[in-house]
């Protein structure tokens, strides 16, 4: 395996009494596409900002191509490129002028400006003022600027948050084609499960400043691949004792909504037993659904809450 482009080793970051990042370690290999997945406040942005050099960790080491921020600022500005969670540009500049400005910082020729605008498909908006762009177009512009200097490490902080499904899909398509054409490592933070699943080679699940799990989607799910889910809703409260027994891992019961998730070894074996118990106890079901475990279920079983929360 090649040397990693990014190494994060035992990094801590505190804000007053809050442990924003609480001892995380991970590495990124060249060309790898990584998702930092977690709910709001998980510490994703703080992690990314420490990698960007905007914030300094209290403890731990961050190496980018073997360099750290303390001594290599100008070099690292060439290695890293990024799009912020919400990048603002000057309202009264056109798309072309904005990209032009950033290109001048990297001393890039004008042809590169046209190239990146084409990659993000903003050719038709070239002469529009930034203030007249939609949310999706702004993110595309931010992406175009992030692509300018062909940096080996690209950090994208929630590039699709707040976008409608069509705009999100467009950004995904751009990122997918980039993944194929470039040998760039990308770290993308998101709280959208589908985004991580669709785009990324590897997923790092974060919550409350810690890494809960990391690996490819298959790895994450295969650790739990013998698990399946029976999801149901009733009109009455039920006792959790009903659902003990062989082949049942866990019941996640919401006593306010009367909904439950039964994590089982095999639906085929457990469903008849489940239905039998329901019948014996005279419980009325309003919903019944059987499926494979997803990343969201995994997240809920690890943290007790949804990603979007």
């Amino acid at each position, binding site marked *: 395996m090649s040397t990693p482009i990014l190494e994060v080793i035992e990094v801590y970051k505190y804000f007053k009494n809050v442990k924003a990042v609480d001892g995380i370690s991970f590495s990124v290999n060249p060309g790898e596409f990584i998702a930092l997945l977690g709910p709001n406040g998980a510490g994703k942005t703080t992690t990314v900002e420490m990698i960007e050099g*905007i914030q300094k960790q209290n403890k731990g080491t961050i190496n980018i191509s073997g360099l750290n921020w303390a001594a290599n600022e100008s070099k690292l500005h060439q290695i890293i490129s990024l799009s912020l969670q919400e990048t603002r540009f000057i309202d009264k*500049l056109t798309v072309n*002028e904005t990209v032009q400005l*950033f290109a001048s*910082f990297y001393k890039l020729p004008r042809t590169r400006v046209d190239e990146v605008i084409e990659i993000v498909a903003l050719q038709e908006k070239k002469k529009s003022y930034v203030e007249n762009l939609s949310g999706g177009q702004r993110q595309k512009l931010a992406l175009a600027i992030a692509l300018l200097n062909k940096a080996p490490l690209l950090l994208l902080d929630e590039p699709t948050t707040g976008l409608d499904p069509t705009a999100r899909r467009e950004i995904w398509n751009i990122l997918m084609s980039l993944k194929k054409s470039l040998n760039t490592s990308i770290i993308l933070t998101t709280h959208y499960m589908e985004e991580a699943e669709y785009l990324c080679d590897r997923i790092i699940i974060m919550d409350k400043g810690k890494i809960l799990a990391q690996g490819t989607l298959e790895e994450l799910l295969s650790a739990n691949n013998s698990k399946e889910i029976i999801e149901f809703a009733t009109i009455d409260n039920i006792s959790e004792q009903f659902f003990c027994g062989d082949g049942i891992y866990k019941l996640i019961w919401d006593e306010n909504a009367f909904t439950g998730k039964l994590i089982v070894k095999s639906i085929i074996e457990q469903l008849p037993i489940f239905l039998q118990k329901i019948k014996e106890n005279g419980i009325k079901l309003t919903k019944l659904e059987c499926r494979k475990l997803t990343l969201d279920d995994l997240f809920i079983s690890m943290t007790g809450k949804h990603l979007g929360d």
Partner: protein
Amino acid sequence: MLNRSFLQLILVQIRDFYREPAVLFWAFLFPILMAWGLGIAFNKKPEVTKTIALVINEKESTLDFEKLFKNTQYDKKLDSLNDTYYYNITYGNENLGLTHFRLKPVSWQQAELLVKRGSASLILATNEGKLEYHFDKFSAEAQLAYLQLTSLFNGENLYEQQAVIKPMTEKGTRYIDFLIPGLIAMNVMMSTMWGISYTLIEARSKKLLRRMVATPMPRWEYILSHIVTRIVLCFAEASIIFAFAYYYFDIKIEGSIFAFIILFISGIIGFSGLAVLIASRTAKTQIGNGLINLIIMPMMLLSGIYFSYHNFPDTVIPFIQALPLTMLADGIKAIFNESAGFAEVWKYIVILNAFGLITFVIGLKYYKWY
């Protein structure tokens, strides 16, 4: 040699400037309107009309009052608007300037109301065959009206006076000659403080800066580009004010134009440093707003822009003279009206540049980029 990114940064600001029509109004049209308005208000006033509230004692009639100024020429005129009458008395002559007094008979309550609202500065009342003057002893305008009226009632005739009055109309002695250089100086302050400080704070609060500092852009280049842009814009603004004053009020630069240009740039540099310092750590535009006002308001009032600071007590004048706006305004006035050159204004040039450089360096050192 100017590099491309520096040129781009300047271009960005100039575009940002001219693409906002409201900014164009405030930067160019507003100073002209102000110069025009103030110039007209204080310059072309050979004749003024002053209202005097006249309260006639209940026991007396208007005839009794008319007897009191039998020595004075007056007209009794009907105010067709509200069917009341007033006495019109005129003081002065062509050389002194003319003041028309309108003595309006009103009740005591109405008279007080006229004073409170500022439409009259003096109440004239009759009391058992005598005249009473009611006015604020701190009001120069009321004092003047009092003196003029007593002189009229005593029957003094200005035409018979021995003294000769010669109106001064030479260039450099008019109010407008005092005003225009001050307005040019003030415009430098306003344009620089708002144009640099506010823009920098806004860029930070909108997180415009955060993305830029994540590139190899040299940080000093970003701030310096604001100052260079401001020099260009200030020249454009001052040229327009000057051109207007030149054609409309016949204002001329009597002294060294070269010294004026150097002093003008020094003023921009001085205020730019201060603007960078103010913007260096201010996180919100609202706070920036307050800070900028805190700095410019006292200077606007103290530095002798609209009226001379020599009316302030002697003890505070040295402090007023040490303000950057006072230095710039005094320097420009000296060049415009007193034929001054480098010999007279070099001190201002040195101090303004040093002030700008020091504040700029401190500001840059503590600058918060995100």
